């Protein structure tokens, strides 16, 4: 199936400030200024975003930034206090539920049910006919190499297998939109890789995939669009390539051996993130020209043993930190970002 025209559009979708100017194909998901509070806690504040049809959309932010609340409003488990959510142009409601496959962050399955029966149940719940549901359950179990487990009860399955079943539950009804909340959490690398392949396959079929994660590098690998939120507010969104291009090549990566203290004394370097074997130096705007970079390298060369250097676009993590006001981000989220990097 060809990808839908919207994502191929040469003009980034966010350049259409009003819906009437947007291309004819409605966005898969559109949030129009949605807010949600729990008592005094303002979980999401006036969030506006559009997920183009056919996009792989990364919904990023530290833990507690409002990702899950936003997603729950998209799948109509929660109703926004203000604003509205549109699914394929229609207001989110019970009739839009069949359009979305949902993998929640907190997983849960009927442990006493047989695997195949559970899959058929969830498929039928999404409007798939019983005969077809049975067929799809077998296909997916085969695809996930779990065919031998169809007649077993779920509590006989390992954690990793249950994760895969949970994923099948989200995709079995073949919905045009997939929403995955922290889908890779708790997956071992082999399974994570298998699911990633399936996601790419689904994307090639023209499905819209939105996944939330607090792991920026995961989003960098998979997404063509991203939206970064922090404290319930949108920080920035758009095509990943556009965002990174706009940020410029402002980072110098240096693989080195020697005394790291020298980085902080280097002229033209705003900040140094040292990772032991290499360091990422953030360059001041006036120091990003090739000439300025060579000056910096000439300064470092006699003081360190440099094995490799590269001028980079900043990582998504760095862009995010810049956008929310640099390193003094809240302690918890900062820690999350640091560990995930």
């Amino acid at each position, binding site marked *: 199936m060809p990808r839908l025209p919207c994502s191929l559009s040469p003009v980034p979708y966010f350049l259409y400030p009003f819906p009437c100017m947007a291309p004819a194909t409605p966005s898969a998901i559109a949030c129009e200024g949605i807010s949600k509070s729990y008592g005094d806690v303002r979980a999401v504040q006036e969030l506006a975003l559009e997920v183009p049809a056919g996009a792989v959309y990364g919904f990023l932010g530290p833990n507690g930034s409002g990702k899950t609340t936003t997603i729950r409003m998209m799948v109509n488990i929660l*109703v926004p206090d203000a604003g509205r959510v549109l699914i394929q142009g229609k207001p989110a409601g019970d009739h839009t539920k069949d359009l979305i496959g949902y993998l929640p962050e907190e997983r849960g399955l009927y442990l006493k049910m047989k695997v195949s029966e559970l899959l058929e149940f969830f498929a039928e*719940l999404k409007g798939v006919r019983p005969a077809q549901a049975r067929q799809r359950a077998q296909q997916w179990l085969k695809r996930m190499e779990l065919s031998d487990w169809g007649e077993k009860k779920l509590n006989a399955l390992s954690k990793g297998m249950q994760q895969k079943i949970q994923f099948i539950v989200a995709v079995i009804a073949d919905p045009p939109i997939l929403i995955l909340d922290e889908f890779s959490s708790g997956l071992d690398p082999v399974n994570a890789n298998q699911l990633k392949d399936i996601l790419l396959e689904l994307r090639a079929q023209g499905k819209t995939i939105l996944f939330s994660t607090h792991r920026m590098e995961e989003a960098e690998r998979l997404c063509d669009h991203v939206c970064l939120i922090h404290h319930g507010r949108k920080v920035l969104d758009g095509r990943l390539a556009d965002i990174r291009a706009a940020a410029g090549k402002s980072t110098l990566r240096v693989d080195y051996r020697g005394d790291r203290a020298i980085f902080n004394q280097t002229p033209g370097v705003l900040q140094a993130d040292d990772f032991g074997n290499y360091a990422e130096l953030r360059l001041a705007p006036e120091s990003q020209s090739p000439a300025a970079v060579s000056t910096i390298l000439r300064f470092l060369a006699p003081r360190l043993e440099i094995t490799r250097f590269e001028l980079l676009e900043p990582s998504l993590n760095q862009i995010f930190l810049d956008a929310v006001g640099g390193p003094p981000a809240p302690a918890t989220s900062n820690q999350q970002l640091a560990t995930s990097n």
Partner: protein
Amino acid sequence: MKLLTIIKREFLSRVRTKGFLFFTFGIPVIAAGFLFLEYRIVQASQNVSSNLAVVDLSQQLYPALAQALDTKLDNGEAAFHVHQVAATAATLPAVEAQLRQQVLAKQEDGYLIIPADVLTSHTAQYHARNAAAVAVRESLQAHLREAVTRARMAAAGIPTSQIAGIVSGGFSLNQLKVTKTGDSTDNGETAVVAMVLVFVLYLFLLLYGVVVMKAVTEEKTTRISEVLLAAVDPFALMLGKILGVVATALAQLAVWAATLLLVGVYGVAMARAAGADFTQYVPHLPAWLLVCFVIFFLLGFLLYASLYAAIGAVVSSDQEAQQTQMPLTMVLAAAIYLAFLVMASPSSTLSVALSLFPFFAPVLMVVRVAVSNPPVWQVLLAMALCLATFLGCTKVTAKIYRVGILMTGKRPNLPELLRWLKYA
């Protein structure tokens, strides 16, 4: 369609458990087994002829007694083998000692001593090896009493030809219930039956209310609710769960009722074959009462199930559920208690008001229909109110559930609950 899917899952996942199969089929089998065993034991003891020695000091009762005791057992044998042992007041101790030896030697099963003044003394003595054989003693007593009565009548100068008619003419009191359509036979058993029906409802609610509650908490603890809610609207989910569990309960009830009916029909048929007519004890139930009972049973079950579901939606653990369901159990108990009040004066204003109140109606309206004749509109109104309350409760429960699952932790207080209703 989605509702059916949920009902199907709830139903099948419960019906297939070993516990359900055991309770549904095991208990009737075990109960029927016990009944059958007891029946066989009683029958075995009844089907043994008794060898009976009779010492008739009055010298006049034996012929009548021997004639009266000439009855047959179920298996066609004579119930008693009676023979007279001659004795006088002087020889009695020696004769009795000898009879005692014979009883102990199992030549006789027992001996009967009829005193000389039997017509005035009112007592006779029966000595038996097995004094606990109730059936033998009862039969003996009845026949002896009849023989004594006949003898007394004869002594009073009543002609023998008339005695038989006087003795066999029985008497019983028939009570009639006054209704608009005419008086119908009712010996009070409808009221008893109504109470039995109401207790069945009560027991089932207690038994299955907890199941409904667990069905709702189940997904909260296992965290399936998010996927479910992303697929169906909460009202359909709640309705599906309640209907699924109620269907399970009804399936169980149907098996039990069928067993009971079979045993009952079999029992009455057996009794009739044995010569005793029990059909008069089979309660006569007006069709209208049955219809009302069935409808109110369903409505009451659904209504209380939705309340238990609401508790399940609010609490986050089983222990909490135990505490929180107390008020509900008390409302149920109040309904049963009020049933006696309504039975005493079924048409008073208070009774009418109470029987229209949705939480009491399933019990009280059935009682009223059983013992009096409430206007049809009142019955229909009570049904409508029950149904509306059930749907309303389910709707509110669905809202609480929708918000509640996303906020685990401590149990919400009332203001928080009201705010949840607003969120959803």
